[in-house]
């Protein structure tokens, strides 16, 4: 019963206040308020490092239904999470489900938030909140409990990758293709998708000069925040682009590859955070439903002439991926690794491995 639960406020930087009830960890926090329209996958989203610095609003009103899976491991990483911990600053929902039911659940969402010291607020008109975010664009906000005020915080000014990525080089698996994973806040499912395909993954921190490593291909991961702050990563990518080894970028990886290839980025009025974004492969009639999570988008106009758009968003025509016209470099703004979300484009990992095999053959041949 919700009567009697602790009152909490969500305050937006335009002065709008939503009153709700507390669940999860009771503390005040601030961050950028973003909404996601996915209907499943809160354990995955909450642990996605790309959400660093953000207060996440679920437009789907019923959250917590199937609890949260336990911290079982596979490949040396948690099996059901996208990183080792929750990265969002706070969670905003309409109807929190105190009771959960699932064979795979270890604990409730609220208990998990408490363990990770992340606050939740429910009984909020999340649709109205979403419409405000849609109309007014990026918005900072804070969750206030017990009148304990905190200042607004804009994550775009910070280098968030440093806070979420691996701090040292780590090696996973023992497969035949050696892939450097440039960790700007990589989701573990990128790692899993690679490891399933007979690879050894060398996971390196965001600013690590990987060009000296012994590798067959490079995977540029997703990650949080403003792509323009990843100057060191871009510089390393530019070095790699001079070579011929396959490179595959995802999300932030698409933006960084784009910047390295002469493009620029801008912030969207409101980001794409959903499981239902349609993309079309340029020059074809082939379309995919994709999982997305990005607030910035790549502008392809200033791309060097060797590059071309690979995918485009059917809803707003924004860029969804680029490729080099002759070399084996490509990237997607969406998430082919899914988790959470639709798995339509996981085949891109096969294509990436295919490019590596082709490259290896060419070198040997």
């Amino acid at each position, binding site marked *: 019963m919700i009567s009697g639960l602790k009152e909490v406020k969500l305050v937006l930087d335009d002065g709008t206040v939503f009153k709700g009830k507390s669940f999860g960890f009771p503390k005040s926090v601030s961050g950028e308020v973003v909404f996601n329209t996915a209907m499943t996958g809160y354990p995955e989203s909450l642990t996605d490092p790309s959400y660093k610095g953000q207060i996440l609003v679920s437009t789907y*009103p019923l959250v917590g239904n199937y609890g949260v899976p336990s911290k079982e491991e596979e490949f040396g990483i948690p099996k059901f999470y996208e990183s080792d911990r929750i990265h969002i600053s706070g969670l905003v929902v309409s109807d929190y489900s105190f009771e959960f039911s699932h064979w795979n659940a270890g604990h409730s969402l609220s208990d998990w938030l408490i363990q990770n010291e992340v606050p939740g607020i429910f009984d909020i008109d999340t649709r109205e909140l979403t419409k405000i975010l849609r109309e007014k664009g990026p918005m900072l906000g804070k969750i206030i409990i017990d009148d304990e005020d905190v200042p607004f915080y804009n994550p775009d000014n910070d280098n968030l990758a440093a806070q979420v990525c691996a701090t040292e080089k780590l090696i996973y698996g023992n497969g035949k293709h050696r892939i450097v994973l440039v960790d700007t806040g990589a989701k573990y499912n990128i790692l899993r998708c690679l490891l399933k395909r007979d690879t050894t993954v060398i996971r390196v921190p965001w600013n690590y000069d990987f060009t000296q490593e012994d590798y067959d291909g490079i995977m540029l991961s997703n990650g949080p925040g403003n792509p323009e702050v990843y100057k060191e990563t871009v510089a390393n990518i530019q070095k790699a682009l001079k070579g011929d080894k396959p490179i595959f970028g995802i999300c932030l990886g698409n933006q960084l590859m784009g910047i390295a290839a002469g493009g620029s980025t801008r912030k969207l009025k409101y980001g794409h955070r959903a499981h239902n974004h349609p993309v079309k492969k340029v020059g074809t009639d082939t379309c995919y439903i994709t999982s997305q999570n990005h607030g910035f988008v790549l502008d392809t106009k200033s791309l060097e002439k060797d590059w071309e758009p690979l995918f485009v968003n059917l809803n707003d025509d924004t860029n969804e991926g680029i490729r080099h016209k002759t070399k084996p470099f490509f990237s997607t703004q969406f998430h082919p690794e899914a988790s959470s979300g639709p798995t339509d484009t996981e085949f891109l990992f096969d294509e990436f491995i295919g490019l590596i095999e082709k490259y290896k053959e060419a070198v040997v041949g």
Partner: protein
Amino acid sequence: MKKHVNKVVILGSGALKIGEAGEFDYSGSQAIKALKEEGVYTILINPNIATVQTSEKLADKIYFLPVTPYFVEQVLIKEKPEGLLLSFGGQTALNCGVKLFEQGILEKYNVEVLGTPVQSIIDTEDREIFAGKLAEIDVKTPRSKAVTTVNDALKAAEKMGYPIIVRAAYTLGGMGSGFCSNPEELKLRADNAFSYSNQILVEESLKGWKEVEYEVVRDAYNNCITVCNMENFDPLGIHTGESIVVAPSQTLSNSEYHKLRELAIKIIRHIGIVGECNVQYALDPYSEDYRVIEVNARLSRSSALASKATGYPLAFVAAKLGLGYGLHELKNSVTKVTSAFFEPALDYVVCKIPRWDLNKFTGVSRQIGSSMKSVGEIMAIGRTFEEAIQKGLRMVGQGMHGFVGNQPLKNKDVRTELTEPTDQRVFAIAEALEQGMSVDEIHDLSKIDRWFLEKLKNITDLKEKLGEYSSLEELPDELLIEAKKLGYSDFQISRIVLKTHDHQMEEGLLQVREHRKKRAILPVVKQIDTLAGEFPAQINYLYLTYNGTHHDVEFEKDGRSVVVLGSGAYRIGSSVEFDWCSVNAVETVNEQGFRSVMINYNPETVSTDYDVCSRLFFDELTLERVLDIADLESPKGVVISMGGQIPNNLAMRLHRQNIPILGTSPEDIDRAENRQKFSSLLDDLKIDQPRWSELTSIEDIYTFVDEVGFPVLVRPSYVLSGAAMNVVSNREELQHFLELAANVSKQYPVVVSEFIEQAKEIEIDAVAKNGEVVAYAISEHIEFAGVHSGDATIVFPPQKIYIETIRRVKQISRKIAAALNISGPFNMQLLAKDNDIKVIECNLRASRSFPFVSKVLKVNLIDIATRVMLGLPVEKPNKSLFELDYVGIKAPQFSFARLLQADPVLGVDMASTGEVGCIGTNYYDAVLQSMLSVGYRVPEKNILISSGPLRDKIELLSSARLLSEKGYNLFATSGTHRFFEENGVKTTLLHWPDEPEKQPNTMDFIRDKKLDLVINIPKNLTKGELKNGYQIRRSSIDFNIPLITNARLASAFINSFCRMSMDDISIKSWDEYK
């Protein structure tokens, strides 16, 4: 890119029946709209005249002909279309299409099936091919093995692992089937099953698994989306049409959701569907193991539900894909700017609940299981599950006020109800929770997922808390708000907090309402927009919720809104015909420049298609909700006369709350509705009526019967069991009926009326303005009075009544219209015998037959009625029923085959689930078309007549003679045999079912399907007669032999097929009848 197709034929689904109902009117209408938008000339074949899709403004040409290979072929020959659409008319259209394909007819006339190829359809329809097809792509289907010995059965089960299900092959109604948990049980069961069949199927049991469905779309470019997934509240074992269903799924993790989604796409690609299909899964509740149960390669009940649940117009899109478009070439019709290639994101939860009408049938089991018995459904939208399901349980309209706050269940053991569910199971859960049974225990008994049960427990927990208060003043606002968020109605709060007595409920709930409004506890209006608010929506598809603080839309309050109340869940007695009326009223409202506002919650309807009206409230038709909406809209007025009885019953209640009602004044409606008032009105007007009395004791009943004589019609106001109404012909029967079926007291009076035998029943559908009749249509029933008008076969214009009768019916109507000052539609039923005409019923609203007579007469009575209600001038149509050069016949469709054990007999209570209406150049032409449309076949050779009472024997004598002359072999049961023999008609005697030792026997003939038509007229209610007659009727249904139980109808049918051959039947479209 669009194909070059200029002319197509689209097949409808015919009459509404259990398993195939209004959803196909919606699908078909959407498809036709899509085709029209592309400039394709569209020809529709559908005998269901009450549908919206068979209206003038949609298809270019309409044939009211049976959807069978013969008739479709005739239309193909005549129209020479390039394309054929099969997937919008349910199983009827699909089966017909497959037959046309197999018979080479499509090839012969060079007709291309648009959308999914026929071979793909065949691949999904045949279980074995289907399982093989899915095995090719490593997709799992339930394991099953056919065996012929008990030993092999044991071996198969050992391999599969217990529990297993045994099914006897080639039997009807699941005889010999059942679950076995160990070899001993299997041995017993298999022994038994082999007595029915020499082959049995041993199948793995998936009982208790979750049932999940996906609606999948694929275009010719191989692009796929899943528009919606849905989870059944009731686990596997209960037909999805019998289950409460939620969308989106609630208990699936991301990984499960997307695993099944990925499989669905893999399947649709492999099968090669172009358009829409539905994939049903069983999902293990303890792992990610799954089985594919079924794929429907066509639009379905689920796809209609998914369209309404998401706002994604599946049928519309599927039709465009059939023309060759890619999904990415189409726009999302809600946002108009984003792509149709996307998957809707919901920010609400919907709950579908079936509507059963099992008490309308005698003998039928109330248990629900693997076959569908429900006749309709509702969809409720909320932002909590509790809100959605409580709304939904009210919407079903069977006297429930939500999950709690209802009358206790009668004669139900809660535990039994949880394990062996009937239509009452959800209320048994409420009782179990209120009795303190734990969620775990309820789960163990019902296998319903704990998440659903926990949510339901939130409702009962809150009830307990609310019950601690006894006045609104002491009830904290916070608790009241929480109650509203959990879907409590003012009625429930009144009953639980105020402990309001039944007769003061109206006051109580209005008191709650007033208190709420004072405390500013009000619902908000939210939009359904397919994208969870991510993009602005251009449509007004709305619902109300207490789980929110802001409205999505603004209300003009300019007095130009006209609210039309829809018809709610389809049920026996109220279905698609009222949707047609509602949609037509809305169209007139639109045309006249008003803002049309529709309230309805039936996902199978066209009226709940958001492109029909200016604003659609997909919400409750309760006093509370209509008042909520009226407060927001401040409408010019509310139309309560189009949606049948539900809105009609709100007339007076809305009127008392000062809501303007358009048309006839609610006080006058009440004068027609109230039996006493109406009766004295008739007396004042000197209009005759059958004698009747409302009686409160058994003695009074006998005294009254002594006065009027048998038979009498008995209508109890409180029914214990069995039919609510019955005709009894003697003292013994009366006593029997009153003991068994009714409770008689001051509180529950019984209405007894004189029942006039051998009387013709006549109907008039009319529109009046300020008491003056402006348009009317008079029709006659083929059957004598005594068959419910919804089950009767109706002829318009009437062919066999006196001109004088027509004149007198008109005069009576005029008098009544004037006396009640009618402004709007009304319908009257009358009896005509000799020179007497008596009024039996009068409804001051549109009736079931309005679409039929409007379409046959080609005068839209609803349009006229709506203009009258809007206060606009109307002209009297310059056309009358006397000028029609053709005949229309409306025939009922029964669904007895679905209702195991139900006695397929007609009476004063309605039993049909749908109807057709056909037009012919003469009476016989129309009779044949309509009878063939509802599943009758012209018999080839053998006909059994078992003709009941003497007068029916006499009625059938000339027909029997005609049959004999035509060379038919006649069979008869003993009495009929004797009677026919005495009158010179030769028949072969077949013995009664209760004398199985005597040969030849009726039962053997039925079982061996040696009969092509069975005519069985029930004689009376004596036990032996009932048993024998019942056996003949029931097994005819079970063995799919056409059955007629009314002598007048039998004569009409026999005369028609003896006088006309199939080739003589007119193949004419609606517009060719001039």
